[in-house]
């Protein structure tokens, strides 16, 4: 696949993934752009991989996790009170509150949650992507779910989980 074709096909999905990962569209744009720029430089090698998109997505995760200084500067500070969001619709307020809590998660926890529940990766795949043990992935997700105030027994999700 030509790189231009890959970008045309996959960039929207990468933008979605990066936005879910960063909770910031401007950061996602920057993230995806940087990754695509570097992917282009090594496209000959990436394009012959079994799953080029998985590789590029991993580049996105790595890029995100490496932007320590930038994210430190732009991450919510503990002393900043959460913003109560309510436009009258309970579901919408709950959803927006969830986005807010997601945005406040530590980077690795957020990456683990996104890879698990958004990208649908297994613990092993997440461990590979994040460069840690599966047990670490499970503990990261456990802590993240606590911070997100998610009760896995509350209701059956409408999507299939991949373990």
């Amino acid at each position: 696949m030509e790189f231009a074709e890959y970008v045309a096909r996959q960039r929207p999905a990468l933008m979605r993934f990066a936005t879910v990962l960063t909770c910031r569209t401007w950061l996602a744009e920057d993230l995806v752009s940087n990754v695509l720029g570097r992917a282009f430089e090594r496209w000959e090698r990436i394009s012959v991989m079994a799953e080029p998109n998985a590789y590029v997505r991993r580049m996105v995760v790595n890029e995100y996790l490496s932007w320590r200084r930038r994210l430190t500067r732009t991450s919510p500070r503990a002393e900043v009170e959460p913003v109560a969001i309510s436009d009258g619709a309970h579901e919408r307020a709950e959803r927006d509150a969830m986005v807010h809590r997601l945005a406040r998660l530590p980077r690795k926890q957020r990456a683990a949650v996104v890879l698990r529940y958004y990208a649908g990766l297994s613990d092993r795949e997440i461990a590979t992507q994040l460069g840690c043990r599966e047990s670490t992935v499970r503990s990261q997700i456990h802590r993240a779910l606590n911070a997100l105030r998610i009760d896995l027994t509350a209701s059956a999700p409408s999507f299939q989980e991949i373990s």
Partner: protein
Amino acid sequence: MSDLRTLHDAFAELERHADAADARTAPAVRPRRAVRLVPVMATVVAVAGLVASAVWLVPADSGMPTAGQPSTASSTTTARTPVPASSDELIARFRVVLGDTATFEVTTKGPFSEVPALSEHNLPPGLASAVPLTVNSNVPTDALISGTLTSAGVTGGFGLMIYSADSEPTQWCSFHREGPGLTPTRPEDCPVSTLPDGSRLATETVRPYPGTVAHMACLKRPDGTTVLLHVSNQEDPSGAAINSPGGRIYSPQSPLTLDQLKAIVTSDKW
């Protein structure tokens, strides 16, 4: 407690924002490549503590300097290059323009050491418009600073950038930005006035979160030189981004008024 369905709803909401952002940066929507500089700068400026959204009203005839600034309308005829060649030069000019109005301390300077911007020559033919960020090689990207600014005992965050592009100053208006928890803004909340010399001035005030306020003034001179200034009462006005409060709040109000920002960007001392 919530359940996973809510988490999935949150993902879906973020996806919608991604799609909206993608649509805004799609080549068909933004055909001018030079405009692509703006998202690059937006990112860096946001990181540096600048990017602000805004909801505010400006009198139609209020585009001229006030609030003690000794400046007049912008000048395009200076012996120096319109765009400072470096952050240090920008700092020196900013100091002159501010005079006694305020003091400032720079914490971040360009160029973009952490954001390896793409340029058109490291992209394949025909791809420049498909990749969201490209930098016009004619546009200096060094004239960028941010930090803290203090006026009359009030401290806040600021960000300043001078660059050259053909994009409109409204590129910086917050109605281009959106996110859960953000107060929706409209184009009419970011008025643009044309000054006597033909410069275009966009101004806005945003209160992204309770207790925060950020002013933005962006002047595009007839030659394309654009002066962008954000001043906020918080560390990082990029609280305009999705649910990312902008750091520590320094003061109850912004150290400068919007009129003062207008006076600064239109100063003839740049």
